[in-house]
C-alpha cells in the first residue's frame, strides 16, 4: 500500500515521515517518533491514556490516523516540562498531591487537564470531574487527581496574576 507523506509539529519540533494511511497516530507517536509517554490502554476510545493535545483540542490518538494529523501542532506529555526540565505546574501538582498510583493514566490525565485549564482556568471540582470524564484511572485515584488539577489551576492563575502585575 502506498505510503503518504505527513508533516507535523510535535512538542515544538517539525517532523516529516512517510506513513501507511492505516497507521494510528498513537502508533506513529510511540513507535516512529519514540515518544512513549502517551500510553495505549484500551485502544477503544474509552480510557484516554493516549490523549494528545492537537491544535488546541484533547484527542484520543488511538482513534485518529496519523495522516489526519498532517499539518497539526501536537503536544505530548514529553512537551509539558520547560526546556530546562522544570516540571509544568500540573506535573508538580500531581506529584505533590499524590495524583497517581501506578501512573499509567497520568500522561493522558495531565495532557487532558492542560487543555481543560486553558479553556477554563478556574474550574469547580464538578467541572474538573466532567472535564476528565474521558480519562479512566483504574487505581481509583480520582480524588487526588481532582485535588492536583485544582492546585495546579491555583498555581497557574497565581503566575498569571504575577505576570500581569509586573
Amino acid at each position: 500500500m502506498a505510503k503518504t507523506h505527513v508533516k507535523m509539529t510535535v512538542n515544538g519540533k517539525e517532523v516529516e515521515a512517510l506513513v501507511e494511511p492505516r497507521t494510528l497516530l498513537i502508533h506513529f507517536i510511540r513507535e516512529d517518533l519514540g515518544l512513549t509517554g502517551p500510553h495505549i490502554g484500551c485502544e477503544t476510545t474509552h480510557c484516554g491514556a493516549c490523549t494528545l493535545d492537537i491544535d488546541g483540542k484533547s484527542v484520543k490518538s488511538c482513534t485518529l490516523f496519523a495522516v489526519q494529523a498532517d499539518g497539526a501542532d501536537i503536544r505530548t506529555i514529553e512537551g509539558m516540562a520547560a526546556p530546562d526540565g522544570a516540571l509544568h505546574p500540573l506535573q508538580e501538582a500531581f506529584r505533590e498531591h499524590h495524583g497517581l498510583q501506578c501512573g499509567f493514566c497520568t500522561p493522558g490525565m495531565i495532557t487532558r487537564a492542560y487543555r481543560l485549564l486553558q479553556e477554563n482556568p478556574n474550574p469547580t471540582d464538578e467541572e474538573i470531574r466532567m472535564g476528565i470524564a474521558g480519562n479512566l484511572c483504574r487505581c481509583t485515584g480520582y480524588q487526588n487527581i481532582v485535588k492536583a488539577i485544582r492546585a495546579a489551576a491555583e498555581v497557574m492563575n497565581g503566575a498569571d496574576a504575577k505576570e500581569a502585575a509586573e
Partner: protein
Amino acid sequence: MIPGTFSYHRPDSVDKAVALLTELGEEARPLAGGHSLIPMMKLRLAQPEHLIDLSQIDALKSITRDGDTVVIGAMVSQHDLIDSGEIAASLPILIETAKLIADPQVRYVGTMGGNVANGDPGNDMPALMQCLDARYVLAGPNGSREVAARDFYEAAYFTKLEAGELLTEIRIPVPPAGHGYAYEKLKRKVGDYATAAAAVVLTMNGGSCASASIALTNVGDTPLFAEAAAAALVGSTLDKAAIDAAVSAAEAITDPASDGRGPAEYRTKMAGVMLRRAIERAKARAA
C-alpha cells in the same frame, strides 16, 4: 487492533468529495470525525478500500443563520456546538444534548454530520433532529436534495443516503422564543449510549400547551418520532392525565433490544420515565 489497508483521499471541496464517492463506489467511505468508523475499522467490522477525509472542506465547518433556520455544517464538532453563541441563543437543546454525548475528547472530534448520517440508533442527535423537524442536505452527482430527519432513517445503519451522496448540512427551523425544551438521557456511565432518551420541545399559551414535539433515542432500530405522544399534550395544561397519556403513547411505539443496558421491557419503561422528566423540565422552562 490495526485496521485493514485503504487508500486515503483528502479533497478540499464538496464537489471533489462527491466526485470521489461517485467514482470509487461502494468501497469508499467518507471520514468525518471517525469516532464511529475508526473503531469499526480496528475491529475489521468495516473495511473500506478508500477513505475520503472531509476535514479540509472549510465549507462544511460553519454554523450560520438563514432567516428562521439555523444551518449547521456536517463537519461542525459537538465541541463547536457547545461553544456556539448562535446555538446557545436559538437552539439550547442542542447544547444540552451534545454535552451528554460521549466524553470531552470525543466531542472535540465527533461531528454533527457523522452523528446523524451514520444511522446508529444509539446516537443522540437523530432523535433530536426529528423532534426539531430538521432537514438534511444531501449533495450528490446530480446536485443537492433535502430529506427530512423524520423520513431519513430506515433501519439500523440504513438511511435515505444514496451511493455517491454526502450529507453536507443540517437545516433546523428555530423554535419560537420562549419554547420549553429538554433532552433526558439515561445511561450507565459517561460515554455510554442511552438505555433510553427523550427529546421534547413545546410551547405554552395562557397555561395550556400550544404545540409539542417528541422523539426517542435507542429504543428501536431507528430514532422514533412520537407523534401521538405529542398530540396527547397539545391543548392540555400538561396535567398528570395528559402526561400519562403521552407516556403511554410513547411507550407503545418502542421496540428496544434486550442487551447489556437491560431487558426490553425495562428500556421501554425507562423511555417513559425519560419522557415524563423531559416534559416536566420543558414545561418549567417554557415562557
